[in-house]
C-alpha cells in the first residue's frame, strides 16, 4: 500500500473517502453501519487508521471507544499497514493436519518474521487465516489475494522469492 500513501495522491484520497461516506450513507448513517464501514475502509486503504476511526465515530454517532473496540474485536480488520506483498497461510484444521505449520516455520526462517508481522523493508507481510474453506486443497496459501492450493514450504518459498527478485 506504499504507493497509495505517496505524495500527490490527493485525488485518490478524495475518492477513497467518498467510498467510505457512500457506505455510511447507504445504511442511513446509522450506528449499525459500523462494521460495513470498517470493511470499506480496509478495502480502500488496506488498513484502518486512527484518524479514520475518529471520522467514522463522528459521522455515525458511535463513541470512538466503541469503534476501536469493534475494529480490534474482529480478526479481519487490521490497524497496521501491510507490506507490499501479503502471504496469508491458512491454518484451518485441514491445512494444519497437512502441514501449514511447516510453511509458516519456513517463511519465518527465511525472512525472519512471525505471523502478523511485516519485513523491515516493508516488502512482505505474513498473515494467517482461520479457514479459507479451501480444505479440499489443503494446505492453502493466499498470495496477494490469489488462493493457491496444495502448497509446501518449497513452493511457497519459490513464489515469495519471485516477488523479491522483481
Amino acid at each position: 500500500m506504499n504507493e497509495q500513501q505517496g505524495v500527490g495522491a490527493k485525488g485518490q484520497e478524495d475518492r477513497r473517502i467518498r467510498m467510505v461516506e457512500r457506505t455510511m450513507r447507504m445504511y442511513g448513517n446509522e450506528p449499525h453501519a459500523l462494521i460495513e464501514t470498517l470493511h470499506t475502509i480496509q478495502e480502500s486503504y488496506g488498513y484502518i487508521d486512527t484518524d479514520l476511526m475518529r471520522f467514522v465515530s463522528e459521522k455515525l454517532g458511535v463513541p470512538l471507544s466503541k469503534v476501536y473496540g469493534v475494529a480490534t474485536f474482529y480478526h479481519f480488520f487490521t490497524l497496521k499497514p501491510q507490506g507490499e506483498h501479503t502471504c496469508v497461510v491458512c491454518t484451518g484444521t485441514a491445512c494444519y493436519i497437512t502441514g501449514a505449520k511447516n510453511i509458516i516455520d519456513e517463511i519465518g526462517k527465511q525472512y525472519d518474521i512471525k505471523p502478523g508481522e511485516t519485513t523491515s523493508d516493508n516488502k512482505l507481510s505474513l498473515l494467517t487465516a482461520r479457514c479459507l474453506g479451501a480444505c479440499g486443497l489443503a494446505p492453502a496459501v493466499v498470495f496477494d489475494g490469489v488462493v493457491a492450493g496444495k502448497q509446501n514450504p518449497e513452493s511457497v518459498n519459490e513464489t515469495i522469492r519471485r516477488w523479491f527478485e522483481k
Partner: protein
Amino acid sequence: MTYEELLEIAKIENEKKAQYVHTINVCVAAGCMSCGSQELLDAFRREIEKRGIENWCKAKGVGCLGLCTAGPLIAIEPDGIIYKAVKPSDVHDVIDALGGEPVKRILCPSDMSFFTKQQKIVLENFGKIDPERIDEYIASGGYQSLYLALREMSPSMVIDQIVKSGLRGRGGGGYPTGLKWTTVMKASGSQKYVICNADEGDPGAFMDRSVLESDPHRVLEGMAIAGYAVGADKAFIYVRAEYPLAIKRLRKAIAQAEHLGVLGRGIFNTPFNFDIKLRLGAGAFVCGEETALISSIEGNRGTPRPRPPYPAEYGLWGCPTLINNVETFANVPAILRNGSQWYSSFGTEKSKGTKVFALAGRIKNTGLIEVAMGTTLREIVFDIGGGIPDGSKFKAVQTGGPSGGCITEAFLDQPVDYESLAKLGSIMGSGGMIVMDDTSCMVDVAKFFVEFCMTESCGKCVPCRDGSAQMHYLLDKISRGHGNTNDLHSLEKLCELVKNTSLCGLGMTMPNPVISTMHYFRDEYLAHIHDKTCPAGVCNIKGGRK
C-alpha cells in the same frame, strides 16, 4: 411475475439447452477456481468459437462437482463423462473426443463410489447449472416452491410440511426446524426478521461456501418461504468476509431475483414482500452463535448473551427473529416441491433427510459430498472418501470442528446421525470431517483446537476466557514433555468446569476435542508424560526419545 411467466422462462431455457448436442460444464467454485478453472473455461470458449461449433456445443461455468482434490473438474453433458485435473492444453483433445471415446489420460471414472454412493438433495443442481444465471435455476424447477407456498398454501400449511419432514437444523445443533418456525410465527410483534447464518467459522468446513457459490438462488428461495411462513418481510444473510466469491454470487443472485420480482415487493402478485440484505462477518468464530451474530449485525462486537429469551422471541433489534443455517434453508425448496413424506423417507428414525459433509485432511478424495443420514462413517471415509493416501493407517476422523470430537476405527460402523455421534462424544456439527492418519499426534490436535477457541473466545464469560487459556497451558506443557499425571487430572476437571459453566456454545463445547482424545487416545497422553516421547513424532520434545 406470474406462474406462466416463470414457466415461460423455464421453457425457453430448456429449449436453448436442448439445442446443444454437448455441453461442457466447467466447475467454477472456489476450489477449482484456485486451480485455474476460469482460464480453462475461457480456453474452451475460444476453441469452440475458433472451430465454429457454437450452435451445437457450449462451454459454461457450473457449481462444485465435488471432487475438489482433482480440480479443475469438467463434466460433459449429457454424456455423463467427467474429466479431472484438466489443463488448457487438454482443451483440444476434449473437444475432439466429443461423442466418441473419452480422453483416457484425464478421465475420472463416473462410476466410482465417490459419485454413486451419494444422495443429492441440497446439491442436486451442483455441477449442472450456472450459479450466476437465475434462468438456469428456474429451468431446474427453481422458485416454483415459493410460488406454491405463496399462492396455494397458508403459512401454517408450509410449517406443517416442514414439521412433518423432520428437518433439523444443519448448523450443528439439530434443533427441529419446524418447531423453530412455529415459535417465530406465534411470537407477537409487527416486525419480524429472517437471518441466514452463513458464518461458517468451523475450520475444516466448506459446505455452506459451496452451496452459496454453486446454487445461491436455492438459499434465497428457502429464506423467502421461511419469511412467508413466519410472517417476516426483511432478511439478512450474515456471510464470512473470507468468502469473496460466495459474496459476489449472492449479490448477483439477489439483484437478479429482485429484477425478476421473485424477491422484493408483491412477489407473484401477492401482498407478500421480502427483502434480503447481505451483512459481512469480519472473522470472529463466536459470531456463528446466534445471539453473537445478531449483535454483529447490529454493528457491535460479536458477544453472545444469555438465552432465554431466544431470538425467536427477542432477536434482531428486539424483534422475533428466525435464524437458520445455509444448508437448512437449502433443503426447504426441495421439501415443498416433493412433499414432506418424500423427504422423511431418507435418513434414520430421528435424523431425516441428507447431510452435506466436507471431507478433508489425510483422505484420498477430499471434497464435498452429500449422503443420506444413517450412512456409516466407514462408507464415508473408505468408499466415498477412497481411504487414506500413501498406504498410511487410518487413525481418527474428527467431526464438528472445535466443538466436536475424534472417532476411532472401532466406531466406524456407527451410522451418522445426530444421536449416534453425540453418544460417541462428538457432534454432527455443521459437516466438516477431517480424517487423520498416524502422522497426527492427538495431543497436538487437541492443543490446536483449544488454541483456536482460546483466541476466538470473545472474553465475556470467565470459564471460557480463562478456562481456555489454562487448558492450552496444560496441553502445551504436556506436549513439550513437561507434564505429569496431576496435569491430566487438572485438565479433566477443567474440561468439566468449562463445559458446564460457559455462557454460550463456544465455551460449552470447547472441551469436546480434549475430552474425546483423552478418552480414546489416553496412551498418547501418557507417552508424552511418562516416556517424554511423541508417538507420531509431531511434538517437539527436547531431550525426549524419538
